[in-house]
């Protein structure tokens, strides 16, 4: 069987989701942002919410997310995406509203907005990319940086006496009464990507059903900031990030 024969007469198994446009993404090679963008685009398409989605992009590497996924976007001030999303959702209750934020935006500058929006039971979804570093500004220490992890602002590794402890936002979100679904996923292997997609779908559905606020944390990598190849950074993530940020659902009250 020739290549042309398979392409012309065979079934299409996978192609880039239609909502993800042709604009080349500015992310570094191997950055999980692209994978998560693909999942979000696929889920919106699968749910048939193409014309009824309003997303909020943050400040950070994913600031240009609005260039790549063809839905309606708003750009928030640094850390304020959940506040903006709350307003949008209250004005348009039938819309699918989600924010897409990194750890510098969500877990540092926007901690107050994040926690209060989640606790107010706003029917929004927050997609939180946790790569334990400020990637866009050159790899500075973030609140989520692991103990002992080296960054450009803690070149000898993060230590408790000087920098305090890493912040587990998903664990905080899970104890808030306003949240419906809190989960922690990753996208480094094919099964993990499928699970992450299912988690995003579930969160979007709960937010549309008005069951409460949802947080999907994606434990991620920053190969440029960590100064590693994409392959090594995924390995480092598995060995160091995943034990500290354990994967799985932390809370799911939507089933009842």
């Amino acid at each position: 069987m020739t290549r042309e024969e398979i392409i012309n007469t065979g079934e299409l198994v996978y192609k880039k989701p239609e909502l993800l446009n042709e604009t080349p993404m500015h992310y570094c090679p191997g950055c999980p942002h692209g994978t998560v963008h693909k999942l979000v685009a696929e889920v919106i398409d699968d749910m048939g919410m193409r014309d009824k989605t309003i997303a909020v992009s943050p400040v950070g590497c994913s600031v240009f997310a609005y260039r790549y996924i063809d839905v309606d976007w708003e750009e928030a001030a640094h850390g304020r995406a959940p506040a903006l999303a709350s307003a949008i959702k209250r004005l348009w209750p039938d819309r699918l509203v989600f924010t897409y934020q990194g750890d510098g935006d969500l877990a540092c500058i926007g901690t107050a907005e994040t926690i209060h929006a989640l606790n107010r039971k706003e029917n929004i979804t927050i997609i939180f990319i946790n790569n334990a570093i400020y990637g866009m500004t050159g790899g500075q220490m973030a609140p989520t940086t692991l103990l002992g992890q080296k960054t450009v602002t803690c070149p000898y590794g993060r230590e408790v006496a000087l920098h305090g402890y890493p912040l587990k936002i998903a664990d905080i979100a899970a104890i808030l009464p306003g949240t419906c679904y809190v989960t922690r996923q990753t996208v480094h292997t094919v099964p993990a990507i499928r699970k992450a997609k299912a988690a995003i779908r579930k969160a979007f559905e709960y937010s549309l059903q008005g069951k409460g606020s949802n947080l999907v944390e994606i434990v991620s990598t920053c190969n440029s900031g960590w100064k590693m190849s994409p392959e090594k950074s995924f390995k480092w993530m598995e060995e160091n990030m995943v034990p500290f940020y354990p994967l799985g659902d932390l809370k799911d009250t939507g089933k009842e």
Partner: protein
Amino acid sequence: MHGAVVVDTERCKGCNLCVLACPLGVLELTPKTVNTKGYHYTHPVKEDICIGCASCAIVCPDGCITVYRKKEE
């Protein structure tokens, strides 16, 4: 099962994740040629053994890969 992988070589950034994800070693990065962005892009080298599992396409962060599959008659 026979598969075929089509790569958008101009979009590819040569991150090597698809090469690692392929269970059969179908893909490889080009050793010498680069695309207009200067990246060594991925391309199928052992196309005859591809089963069209789409692992490469699923892990590709830039969505450069399209996968087709056909049953052997």
